[in-house]
């Protein structure tokens, strides 16, 4: 196949495929998503989206114990969701190789925190491999399956956004190892984690940990590069590339295995250099562990590295006193350009009306998190996937609605509802809670790139074949109204999210009925899925009240006189501005 320019995620998919992976499961999450989207396109491998990461890992465990090599992928916060099966499967071990890709996001480019997934590898005592570019991502993916089988354990493959989303040259073999599924036999003492078995299996895990440490000491993935011995740096992942950029002459211990650490190798390296430093980002994962081995870790000569956020060559240069390249100052006074709801986005009118209601909004994870920013500023809290509905219930228990005279509303997207919102809603129903819950059903998992999900009914295989969620037969979609009714909620409404009056009425009526629980399903497709354009409206006799501008449409601006102007390249003729004008001055065509 020769050389290819592949992202880390593409390289991992290729490596896993060559290693003979037969099943792939995941919940989409930046920066991990493209791994399975690439793997599904390859022959002789089955891939699916799970409703959440816990389910993905459990499906993966079943497939592995059932005898085939399996890849499970997720973003860092997804590992929290999958932590339950992860921690207990540490003691059971696996069947055929099982690799868990955990993709971290230092600097929170697309995440709610920047936790380091390797803490989970250490916590679960499972090996963790850490590639520094796509070539290594491709190779380590294959090695991870070997390690998983050799040591009878889930093997974590860890990457950060810079590895996942950077294309580098990869020498691709292109040949797949054909493997026969392992014969299946029941082994309850290994896989049934009742206390007596769990205690015995923990002893096996202890022995495995010792064996893994011995392996890490000798492993070729841990590499010493001895150069200038006055500076010795322990580093892994993308940071290795940044260290080499900033400090080409430094001696480096590059750890391709980030759990377990090799104590003897670290001590030997420390003895060969004058001062040992650790370069890492957004955590003290290595520093704490190296210090615990009684190896002295020095502070960089010109100051510490940042405690949070992505670390790049510029930070390393600064910490080690290397002059930065000359440059002009950053420009000041520029308008910020955060992401915004697209023109025609079905979330827009719902947040306009929530703002109007002065509701206390418990939000959730997805594009609609943008309801928290101007001009809506309508969302009070966003913590984690599925939290909106359960937090709204907690707010109710605290009496916040009564004391503030503001209704409490939970807002969640369709994919997030399937991920972990259903159980949250069940908790409210079961305990006789009240309040209003909005499910924004835009027919897709928009935030991560319009993936299929259990609500729209598009499988990963169908997504790869470009099936539009709009073409899925109703019977294959999840009927959210029926589901909520089946849970015992009587006040369930289905509302067109593009119909301003209907949105307003539904929210008003539902929040007024404070004695009962109500659910509003706002249904309208994401504009990245439904790209239908209608003619641009015209503006006549405008009174410059500014109401249309406050809906925050990127296609709507103002001229010097304050008169609204519609950008014909961005407008899709959705009619949101026309509906919002209190004087009927924006006229829809046709």
């Amino acid at each position, binding site marked *: 196949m020769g050389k290819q320019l592949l992202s880390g995620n593409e390289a991992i998919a290729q490596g896993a495929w060559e290693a003979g992976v037969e099943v792939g499961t995941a919940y989409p999450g930046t920066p991990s998503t493209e791994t399975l989207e690439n793997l599904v396109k390859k022959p002789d491998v089955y891939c699916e989206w799970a409703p959440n990461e816990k389910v993905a890992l459990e499906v993966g465990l079943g497939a592995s114990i059932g005898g085939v090599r399996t890849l499970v992928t997720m973003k860092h916060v997804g590992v929290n969701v999958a932590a339950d099966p992860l921690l207990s499967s540490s003691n059971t071990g696996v069947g055929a190789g099982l690799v868990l890709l955990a993709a971290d996001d230092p600097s929170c480019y697309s995440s709610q925190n920047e936790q380091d997934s390797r803490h989970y590898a250490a916590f679960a005592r499972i090996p963790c491999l850490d590639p520094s570019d796509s070539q290594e991502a491709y190779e380590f993916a294959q090695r991870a399956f070997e390690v998983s089988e050799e040591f009878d354990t889930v093997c974590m493959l860890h990457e950060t956004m810079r590895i996942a*989303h*950077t294309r580098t040259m990869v020498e691709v073999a292109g040949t797949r190892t054909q493997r026969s599924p392992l014969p299946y036999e029941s082994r309850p003492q290994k896989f049934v984690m009742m206390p007596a078995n769990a205690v015995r299996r923990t002893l096996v895990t202890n022995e495995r940990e010792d064996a893994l440490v011995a392996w890490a000491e000798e492993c070729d993935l841990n590499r010493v590069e001895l150069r200038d011995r006055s500076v010795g740096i322990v580093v892994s992942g993308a940071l290795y590339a940044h260290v080499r950029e900033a400090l080409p002459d430094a001696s480096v211990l590059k750890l391709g295995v980030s759990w377990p650490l090799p104590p003897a190798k670290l001590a030997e390296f420390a003895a060969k250099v004058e001062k040992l430093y650790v370069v890492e980002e957004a955590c003290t994962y290595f520093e704490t562990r190296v210090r615990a081995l009684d190896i002295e870790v020095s502070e960089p000569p010109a100051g510490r590295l940042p405690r949070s956020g992505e670390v790049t*060559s510029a930070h390393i240069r600064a910490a080690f006193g290397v002059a930065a390249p000359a440059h*002009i100052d*950053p420009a000041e006074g*520029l308008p910020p350009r955060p*992401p915004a709801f697209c023109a025609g986005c079905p979330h827009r009118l719902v947040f306009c009306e929530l703002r109007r209601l002065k509701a206390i909004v418990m939000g959730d994870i997805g594009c609609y998190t943008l309801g928290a920013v101007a001009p809506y500023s309508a969302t009070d809290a966003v913590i984690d996937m599925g939290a909106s509905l359960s937090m709204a219930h907690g707010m109710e228990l605290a009496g916040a609605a009564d004391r503030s005279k503001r209704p409490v509303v939970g807002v969640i997207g369709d994919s997030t509802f399937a991920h972990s919102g259903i159980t949250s809603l069940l908790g409210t129903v079961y305990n006789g809670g009240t309040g209003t819950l909005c499910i924004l059903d835009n027919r897709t998992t928009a935030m991560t790139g319009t993936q299929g999900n259990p609500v729209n009914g598009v499988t990963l295989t169908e997504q790869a074949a470009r099936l539009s969620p709009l073409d899925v037969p109703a019977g294959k979609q999840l009927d959210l109204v029926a589901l909520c009714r089946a849970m015992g909620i009587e006040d369930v409404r289905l509302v067109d999210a593009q119909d301003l009056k209907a949105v307003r009425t539904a929210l008003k009526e539902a929040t007024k009925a404070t004695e009962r629980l109500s659910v509003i399903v706002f249904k309208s497709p994401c504009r990245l899925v439904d790209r239908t354009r209608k003619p641009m409206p015209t503006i006549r006799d405008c009174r410059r009240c500014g109401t249309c501008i406050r809906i925050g449409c990127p296609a709507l601006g103002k001229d010097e006189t304050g008169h609204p102007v519609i950008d014909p390249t961005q407008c899709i003729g959705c009619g949101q501005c026309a509906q919002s004008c209190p004087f009927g001055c924006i006229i829809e065509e046709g």
Partner: protein
Amino acid sequence: MPHDTSAVADVNVTGERIQLDRTLTILLVGVGGQGTILAGNICAMCAAEAGLDVKVSEIHGMSQRGGSVSTVIRVGNKVESMVCDPGCADVVVAFEAVEALRAQHFLREGGSMFVNDEQIVPVSVSIGNATMPADARERLEGIGAHLIPAGQIARDAGSPRSTNVVLVGAMSTALPFAREVWEDAIAKRVPAKTIEANLEAFSRGRAAVA
């Protein structure tokens, strides 16, 4: 604008092999949906065809929702970091003028900046929370940027969606790859029926700098 996220597959070195005395850094900035990713892939392909090492780093996430986006391409005999730090960009290509200003400190001393001479008003401005810089053009001229009416050039060439390829033409004048290598890369990366229009856009972009 569909995102061109497919891999540059099966790189065959067809162009003349090039050796560089140091790694070159190209920074592409713009607004989500402007086609920066395609432009980055064309550039990366040229480097690969020249037998060079290359790394292309993209900030994904919410790029389709009108936020600031950036792509870094680093090419050299052996490329280490995939990030562009301040003062490190040999070439900055800005698809929008405010984004050009936002990226000005990444430019290396003596580097080249090519700017699409257009401004896209962010929602923060239209809702009255911020203002556009009144003197954006003057400030960009002050730092020696090449202001190119890339959108107008693309429309004049009869291919309004090729603004990004006009800018590829402009940046090609500051990079060591032969014109044929660029043209070959464009032909491989754009839809078949748009090859001719895109090559015309590329040609006009080159001419706009000369």
